[in-house]
């Protein structure tokens, strides 16, 4: 299984990097959030005084990076549907490769794709005046948290779209998942400002864990390492679900 997983993972990553369009789409969306949402909201945030020290961009960046891991899951699903439609799934399965291996390669492949956004977004944040004073360990922990989040969401998307061969499914699923999870999280605003029912969602939303985890490094507040633990549990659980779902329901064509 290691040989097949490595081969398919490399294929997944190489395909991304040889397709500048995919990279562009992956980068544009979070950048737009940072540039437009961040700029329009920054004075309001400063006036309210509920967003911690520093600019709103510093508050927003870990949140936007976290929500952008959602769209990464959608691209992983789309690449899987493409493989089904073009017969590649058959080609892979007429070798000693299991459906679970295909699932894992897709999940890790899209998570890797998600990481591409991090350096670009950091650079953009610097332009908007965010100061970074993180130790190498803190950088690593932050990236690891995002990687776990991306792995979890990629697995979730792949599990939901496993039985589908329709191009439109990932978009539909994304619409159902992205909006509620993005707003019912601490990615854009502190959840203490939410009504109780939204706080309840936000408190179990992995995006909240990831956003607050990254924010604690960036804003210099106390670090809650349990957030990383929750993210690890989320990633592990979603991987397990995706693994079993794809063995049973992954459609070939």
């Amino acid at each position, binding site marked *: 299984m290691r*040989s*097949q997983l490595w*081969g398919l993972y490399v*294929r997944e990553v190489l*395909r991304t990097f040889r397709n500048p369009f995919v990279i562009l789409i992956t980068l544009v969306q979070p950048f737009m959030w940072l540039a437009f949402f961040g700029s329009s909201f920054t004075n309001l945030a400063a006036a309210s005084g509920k967003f911690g020290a520093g600019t709103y961009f510093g508050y927003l960046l870990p949140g936007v990076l976290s929500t952008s891991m959602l769209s990464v899951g959608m691209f992983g699903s789309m690449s899987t549907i493409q493989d089904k439609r073009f017969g*590649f799934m058959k080609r892979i*399965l*007429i070798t*000693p490769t299991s459906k679970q291996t295909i699932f894992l390669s897709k999940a890790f492949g899209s998570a890797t794709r998600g990481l591409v956004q991090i350096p670009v977004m950091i650079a953009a944040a610097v332009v908007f005046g965010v100061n970074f004073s993180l130790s190498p360990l803190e950088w690593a922990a932050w990236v690891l948290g995002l990687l776990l989040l991306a792995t979890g969401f990629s697995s979730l998307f792949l599990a939901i779209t496993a039985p589908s061969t329709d191009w439109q499914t990932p978009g539909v699923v994304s619409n159902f998942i992205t909006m509620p999870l993005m707003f019912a999280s601490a990615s854009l605003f502190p959840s203490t400002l939410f009504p109780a029912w939204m706080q309840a969602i936000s408190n179990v939303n992995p995006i909240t864990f990831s956003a607050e985890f990254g924010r604690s490094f960036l804003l210099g507040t106390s670090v809650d390492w349990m957030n990383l633990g929750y993210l690890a549990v989320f990633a592990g659980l979603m991987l397990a679900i995706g693994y079993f779902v794809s063995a049973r329901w992954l459609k*070939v064509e």
Partner: protein
Amino acid sequence: MMAPGGPPAAIIVRDLSKRYGNSHGVLALDHVSLSIPTGTVFGLMGPNGAGKTTLIKVLTGISDITSGSASVAGFDVQKQSLKVRARIGWVAAEVILDDDFSAWENLWLQARLQDLQGWEERATQLLTYFGLIDRKDDKVSHYSTGMRKKLEIALALLHQPVVIFLDEPTIGLDVSTRRMLWDIVTGIHKEFGVTVLLTTHYIEEADALCDRIAIIDQGRIIAEGTPNELKSRVQADVVQLESADPIDPKRLAQIPGVQEVRAQGNDWMIRVGAADDFLPRLFAVVRPEAIRRISVEKPSLETVFLQLTGHRLGQEEPMHDIRKFYAQMRRARS
């Protein structure tokens, strides 16, 4: 069904049925039994929707089985699927390659999927054989259709499979690429000693390439044998002629070797043992000036198929008179 004393069969199918969906679904394969000897080029011939592709899906482990069993290279396709899949190669009707990757990268991925060590030598050998070695680092998107097909076959042969499945290998190809592919099929069979199972709905393709052929129609195998065996089932040439004046059918029926005479106005269909002997005798009975047009149809897989199924390959609409002619002939015989 196995040739006595020959090597064991590469593919054995026993009483296999495949129904899609629930119990009211389409019965794509209807109690199929087949034995494909090792080292042969075996053709599955039938019209679109006959069950050819379904049979390949079952044998390659892509599709499950409703009832019956099948084994490939000595392993059960259901219970030992991974072992089967390590021993087979598959080339789809359409080209399935990573276009953004070079030929070498496509081979690398295939080697990973087959978990091969030291595959580079074999890959170089295959690329050389197919004349692609100089282009091995070019992106596949810059390849011609013929080159892509060659690369696909190289991928399917990389792990030295026992059996290679070619699903409609020449569909949609131009004539010269098709000829090239025929040479390749014959070549790889000789060069690499691989058993080939190909599906086709081109009669001349099956005739040119295959040692043995099974004719499949509506999910059932309706005939199986060498091309010559199948052709000998139609032990007659068919002479079709259009006469200028009415002819007395009795005069034609009296000609030695004539098996059957049918007429529709001035159009005649005469079934004879051998047209070569019949024609000179015909001209002794009928003045050549009285014949406007004459044609001879020799036994071909087309006529075999027509006789067995009542319809021509790749033609869903019934043929006019000739179809009725054969249907009646079949009824008369049974």
